[in-house]
């Protein structure tokens, strides 16, 4: 079955969430991966939304972070201030984010792109900066493209490693899972069909791929079919 690049991101992300207890899900890939993980690998995953829908279980990709299905399926339908206070207090410290660019420090840009001095404005980040600033462990979901994986982002919307000394950041792309740390960006797991040269050349920063990087098991029909049912309109998948 032919997979779209975005679909690979969602499935790789879902497999990574198999071992997590709690997860604050940003809109797009993070929420889709979380729903998929909850159905296939981790039924106890406690999915939280910034809107205050806590321990939620939406039956499809929500239209937005405020979508009422996040509430109707939530065990604790609280409100925005409580959601962010859970992060500030450190009760839930694992988050999923995406954006337009990510750099070697794990900084994310969701605000503006500078194309040779001309500013292209983006919608902004919502609660992503709060997620990044107040979490211990971060999953960043991004298409593996040179314009997105950059040495230094044009604008730091959501800060990375500098937020705390014990920060852990994993980058999930259509080519695999990468660790962003003090020593740079290194491949942890590569998709079964990802050629190391292509993976390296598709990033604008130096990517460390060692021989001991694991290979991901092939994507299953079950994963693909369920994913397509969850993202009914193919919104995040291209």
């Amino acid at each position: 079955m032919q997979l779209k690049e975005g679909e690979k991101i969602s499935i790789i992300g879902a497999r990574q969430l198999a071992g997590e207890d709690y997860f604050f899900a940003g809109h797009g890939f993070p929420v889709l991966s979380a729903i998929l993980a909850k159905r296939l690998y981790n039924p106890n995953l406690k999915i939280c939304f910034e809107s205050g829908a806590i321990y939620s279980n939406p039956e499809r990709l929500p239209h937005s972070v405020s979508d009422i299905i996040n509430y109707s399926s939530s065990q604790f339908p609280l409100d925005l201030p409580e959601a962010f206070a859970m992060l500030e207090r450190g009760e839930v410290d694992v988050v999923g984010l995406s954006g337009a660019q990510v750099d070697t420090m794990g900084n994310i840009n969701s605000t503006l792109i500078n194309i040779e001095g001309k500013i292209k404005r983006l919608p902004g980040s919502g609660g992503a900066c709060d997620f990044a600033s107040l979490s211990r462990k971060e999953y960043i979901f991004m298409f593996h493209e040179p314009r997105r994986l950059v040495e230094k982002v044009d604008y730091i919307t959501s800060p990375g490693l500098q937020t705390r000394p014990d920060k852990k950041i994993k980058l999930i792309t259509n080519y695999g899972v990468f660790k962003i740390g003090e020593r740079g960006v290194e491949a942890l797991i590569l998709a079964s069909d990802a050629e190391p040269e292509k993976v390296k050349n598709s990033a604008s920063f130096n990517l460390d791929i060692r021989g001991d990087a694991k290979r991901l098991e092939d994507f299953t029909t079950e994963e693909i079919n369920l994913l397509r049912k969850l993202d009914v309109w193919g919104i995040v998948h291209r």
Partner: protein
Amino acid sequence: MNKIISLDEFSRQVKEGVKVGIGGFDLHRKPLALVLELSENAQLRNLELFGISLALEADILIGSGQAKRIISSYTGLENFGQCYFFREGVEERRVEPIEMSTYATILSLQAGALGIEYLPSKTMLHSDMAKNNPLVKIIESEFTGEKLSAIRAYNPDIALIHAQEADEEGNVRITSPPATKVDEYLARASKKTFVSVERIIDKIENPTISGLYTTGIILLPGGSAPTSLYPQHDIDAIAMKLYGQGSKGRDLKYCKEVIRNAIERRRKD
């Protein structure tokens, strides 16, 4: 005192250059009927818009050339695309953006509601959004010496909110989250608060927003369409999609028509 007023009376009380706090969140419970009314007043310009997460309501006011500044964490349509009037306004420097995180906007309103100067948080500390931001300053804790973001109080001149019900005394009930608490902060923080509602009832016990903090109640059923009104109405996805197309084509008249029709449809529901 009877606080129920007409749409005209509401409109007359909103003056040029005011700070407008917009209630609701993201694509939920946005005061679109009130915003449409304001967008028809060509004299009303230089508005400063504030919202925790803005969408088509801000896009319309920017498209109408009425906003000079926008303070928000997000201005877009989520799955339905971008707010192109906003994007173009910022790119062409007609509109000044002040970048905030969602939590920071909430803390701004909460500080405004409490009547204090700022609230501290660890958010935004290393973000470029905190640089040259009139609402954020990096400080050191007096207790631990730890670095914190001081999020400055924000007090809108007027607040626009859509809710399920109100009574004549201006007590308001919003039946469920999200943004219920934030709208209560917004009402307390603002000098004047106008609330459009689905219905007027005799007496609201234990209101979400006390009549003490409201200025005028306007009966406008369907007034938050095409955004959702939990738990009664889901997002009007068809209208949102059409709005997204209209905004992309910079067709303001069409965009307003889409909203007007969505409100009318929901009113008849």
